[in-house]
Structures are given as structure tokens and as C-alpha cells.
């Protein structure tokens, strides 16, 4: 079957891709700017066609715990929300990480703190890549920059989640969730009929009972488990770094930006080059694991790095750690739901590194 071309919102693309990827269950709660995901799924009613369960939960807290339950049965399950709702889910996400359950969480980020505004932002970077809830853990974090990415990352997320028994977060934002673009959709895959050996599906006589838990009261056992988790994150960091480079070959100045900011910065690179400034862009696709090695390599041959994010400067800390003082690193970004313009980025590049 051919890929199908459609014009869709980013949120709709995620929903449709989930049905086509053979997802078993979606559990959500309405919040702007991502409610289209739940709305689209309710309208599509995939339970009739694929058997996919779609449920509107009583809260974000309940939704993430439904994901825990479904993931514990070895099913492909997901939830989505926007920033304040993701904060509510953090307890559940920590439990999911602690019980090593595969699942997909989508955050269509809006500006905060608090209720903030419904406009796009990238101010949930720390919460996404550093853990978010209690305890030492990491999510695998993917940052889409287009509606196509929104669709493609659903299947990729489940592949990674099941490969490592680890929750995956798609860190999108209100711009990518709401904007419409053309998107190629893959043909529908059947839902899985085989489940992992660790899943709680009812204990046959042939095996011991399966237990899904994040509890180990013995500190030695708990420390051993933590070492095992850290080893898993090291393995993920070794194997799963993804990024994209744009005119980095001869760049004297490097922009680092993800998601919506990466799209803005592509234009900034063009404008800078039209003005005789050789700029390049590195777009991290995975924010955890972070492309530190590549940023360090490019960093060693450029005059300055500008980290561009719609926040007060969060990813910039990881960029600084990557280059470890070898090259000056600056941050620029608008906040409060305002999308940075390409011209502003070039102005800041000049101001910080070139003068005038």
C-alpha cells in the first residue's frame, strides 16, 4: 500500500498515526493546545476498526495511571497533554520509569509557569530531559519540528520504548500541534498479538507470576536497580542520539535549536549567509539523549554558539556542558508564548559574537 498524502494539524497527525501504528490504547484529558488529539480519536472511533481503546479520563493523573496499567500488560499505550497537565502526570511518569514500562507521552507545550498561556513555548525542556518527577530517571525525548515528524515519531517512539522498556516523550509545542502541513501517512499496521514475557496478562502454569512494581524496600536492592537504570540510560545515549545539520560544513557560527525554533533558525541561517555571516544550524531530534558529542565536534571549529529556544534558557545548559568552555555559548529566545523571529536571531548573533 502507498503512503497517503493528507493536510493535517500536528495534533491530528499524531492521532491518525497512532491508529495506523497499531496503538492499543489512548487515555487523555482535554487541555489546549492539544485537545484535537482526543477529539480526533473519539471521532475516528478506532475501537470499531482496530480495537484501539480511547478513553477520556477524569484527570491527567488518572490518564497517566491508565497508561501505567495498560503498559504493564505489554500493550502499546499513550497519553497526551500540555504543560500544566504534564506536571500533573509527573508522579505517574516517575512510577512508569521506575517500573520500566514502555509507553508514549506527548507534550504539546504551552507557556508557563502556572496556567500561563495557551501559546507555544519550549519552557518544559528541564522537566522533559532531566527527569520531571522524583527519583533518578530519564525519558527518551523526541523533538518534532513538523507535522510529518509528529506522525513519524509515534511509531519510532514505540520502537524505542519497547526496545529499552522505557517511557518516551514527544516534546512538541503549540505551534507544531496547531499548524497544518502536508503529511505522508503510512499504511495501517495490525495491533500486536504477542506480548513481552514480563507483561501481566494472567499467569499461565508455565511461568512464575509477573509483578509490575517500582518498590524495593531493601536499599541495596534499590541501589542495584538504580545502577541498572543508569546503565540503560548510558546504552540509550550510545545508540539513539539523533540530530540534523543544516549548513554546518563551513560554519563559523553555530545555532543550536529544536522544534519550532529549529524551523525559525533555518531561515536565520539563510539571512545570516545573505549578510556574509557563515552560520550553520544543528537541530537535536533527541533531547535525551542529547547530541553532545556532535555539538562538541562542531564547537571546536566555530567562533561562537547561539542556543535558541522559546524559554529563559534551558537547553543552553546542555550545550554549554557539551563544549565545556571551549567556545563562547549564548542563549536567545522569546518567552510567554511568543515565537522568535528569524531576524531577531540574526541580530542577536551579530550582537553577541560579531559586534554591531
Amino acid at each position: 500500500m502507498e503512503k497517503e498524502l493528507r493536510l493535517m494539524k500536528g495534533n491530528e497527525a499524531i492521532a491518525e498515526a497512532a491508529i495506523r501504528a497499531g496503538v492499543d490504547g489512548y487515555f487523555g484529558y482535554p487541555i489546549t493546545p492539544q485537545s484535537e488529539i482526543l477529539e480526533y480519536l473519539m471521532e475516528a472511533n478506532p475501537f470499531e476498526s482496530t480495537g484501539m481503546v480511547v478513553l477520556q479520563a477524569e484527570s491527567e493523573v488518572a490518564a497517566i495511571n491508565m497508561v501505567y496499567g495498560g503498559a504493564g500488560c505489554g500493550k502499546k499505550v499513550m497519553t497526551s497533554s500540555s504543560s500544566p497537565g504534564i506536571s500533573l502526570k509527573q508522579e505517574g511518569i516517575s512510577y512508569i520509569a521506575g517500573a520500566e514500562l514502555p509507553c508514549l507521552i506527548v507534550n504539546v507545550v504551552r507557556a508557563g509557569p502556572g496556567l500561563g498561556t495557551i501559546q507555544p513555548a519550549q519552557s518544559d525542556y528541564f522537566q522533559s530531559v532531566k527527569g520531571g518527577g522524583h527519583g533518578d530517571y530519564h525519558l527518551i525525548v523526541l523533538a518534532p519540528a513538523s507535522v510529518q515528524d509528529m506522525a513519524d515519531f509515534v511509531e519510532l517512539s514505540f520502537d524505542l520504548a519497547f526496545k529499552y522498556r522505557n517511557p518516551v516523550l514527544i516534546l512538541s509545542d503549540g505551534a507544531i500541534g496547531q499548524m497544518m502541513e502536508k503529511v505522508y501517512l503510512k499504511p495501517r499496521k495490525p495491533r500486536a498479538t504477542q506480548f513481552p514475557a514480563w507483561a501481566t496478562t494472567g499467569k499461565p502454569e508455565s511461568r512464575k507470576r509477573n509483578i509490575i512494581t517500582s518498590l524495593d524496600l531493601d536499599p541495596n536492592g534499590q541501589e542495584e536497580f538504580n545502577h541498572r537504570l543508569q546503565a540503560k540510560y548510558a546504552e540509550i545515549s550510545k545508540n539513539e542520539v539523533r540530530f540534523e545539520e543544516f549548513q554546518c560544513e563551513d560554519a563559523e557560527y553555530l545555532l543550536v535549536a529544536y522544534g519550532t525554533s529549529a524551523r525559525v533558525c533555518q531561515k536565520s541561517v539563510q539571512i545570516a549567509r545573505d549578510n556574509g555571516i557563515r552560520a550553520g544550524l544543528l537541530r537535536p531530534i533527541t533531547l535525551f539523549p542529547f547530541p553532545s558529542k556532535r555539538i562538541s565536534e562542531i564547537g571546536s571549529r566555530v567562533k561562537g554558539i547561539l542556543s535558541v529556544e522559546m524559554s529563559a534558557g534551558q537547553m543552553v545548559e546542555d550545550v554549554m556542558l557539551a563544549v565545556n568552555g571551549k567556545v563562547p555559548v549564548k542563549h536567545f529566545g522569546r518567552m510567554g508564548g511568543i515565537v522568535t523571529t528569524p531576524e531577531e536571531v540574526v541580530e542577536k548573533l551579530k550582537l553577541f559574537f560579531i559586534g554591531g
Partner: protein
Amino acid sequence: MKEATGLKEIIKPENLAYRRSEVLVDNTLSYCPGCGHGTTHRILAELIEELGLQSHTIGISPVGCSVLLYHYLDVDIQQAAHGRAPALATAIKRLLPDRFVFTYQGDGDLAAIGTAETIHACNRGENILIIFVNNGIYGMTGGQMAPTTLSGMKSSTSPLGRDVRTMGNPLKMTDIVATLQGTYYVTRQSVHTPANVRKTKKAMRKAIEYQKLNRGTCFIEVVSNCPSGWKMTPVESNKWMEANMFPFYPLGDLKTPAE
């Protein structure tokens, strides 16, 4: 020697009036002597065995004294965050509709932090069994006031007795869920006498049968004692429970199917 031979004569399979259920794992229980959790576990294990459900059961343990339920029942079990068991059960049952799915929760877990999950799972009529062990206190954390702590009852966070004017009134969660459209069978039982054990087992058997028929949420409260939390002997605690808990939490069915 003679005595040993005599015992051997007596302990023969055909003479056994009671044995440990095969679904009950031979682990040392973490419960205090005299506590009702052990008996409630046994009833559940016996029914899973008798009804041949071991390979089709998925249980959910709470946060509280029964957090380690998976050490004692030989079935697949998920351990939930505090209060969230009905949310897990919702997804599990929807994704695996032919399995027997139950939650096992205490009063803090179910009636305080998990109030929303409890009410909404029951209101949606999720086809699950909720077992609610109510001893009016937070046992595991050391005897703090629970939503179900009686008026005037002492606990480590109501050392002068629960003053309902400032601490709120004891919550009758079972009465609340009985009013919801989604619940099918709601009952309140106890396990402090052999007669009550039999009644609880009968109620639980009914609830399991109803789940097979997709009838909606079944909710069984087990009013229980907490000798350690109440600072009483097991015998005293059972007497106190009869005298004080039962008048406020009367035993019996709150909602029965109209059949």
C-alpha cells in the same frame, strides 16, 4: 515417637478440613497479628483457586499495608501509585476484557488520595472488582487519621480524638459509590468471625461471577481492625470494632442487582 506416628495417621489428605490455598504464596505475611488483611487475602486466594481463575487474574495492589500483596498472591499483579488502582484497573480490563481484574485498597488509598479515581471508575461502571479494606486509620505509616476515622477516635494526627468541626467527618465511601449508576453490586462485610468470613466469601464469589457477566463495578468494603494502629490486642480491637465501627459502618448489602 508413638505420638508422632499418631499425628501421621491423622494428617492425611482425606482428613484435611483446611489447607493453604495454592494461590496463597508461602511467604511470611507482613501484617500484624490479628489484622484482617490476612483473612481477606485468604478468601480471595481460595476463590481464585476454586473458580479456576489463576491464569486469568490481574490484581492491583495499593500503597498502604497491602502494598506487598504480590508477595502473597500467586497471580500477576501490578503495584499502583497511591490511590490510583482503579485507573490502572480501568485500562487493564478495557485492554484485556476476558481477564478477572480486581483492586485491593485501604481507606487512605481509596477514600482520601484516590477519591477521584474511585468515584469515576465506579461511575463509568468499569467491569472490575474493588476490595476496600476499611480499618479507619493509616496503618503502614504508623496510625495517622484516615478519611474513615470515626468522630472522637484517636490517631497520631488526631491525638485528642477526631474533632469533626475542624478535621471533617468520617467518609462513607461505600454509601457514595452505591448511589452511582455504574456500580452493580455494593456490599459491606467483615472478617472477624467465621460466620462473617463465610459471608464475605459469598459476597466476593458473587462479585467475581458478576464480572464474568460484564455487569459493571462491584465494590466490597471489608470493615476491619487495626490492633497496632488502634493500640489494642486483637481481641480488644474486634470488640471495639463491633461496638464502634459497625454502628457507623453497618454490615450488609448497599446495592444488589434487581434480579
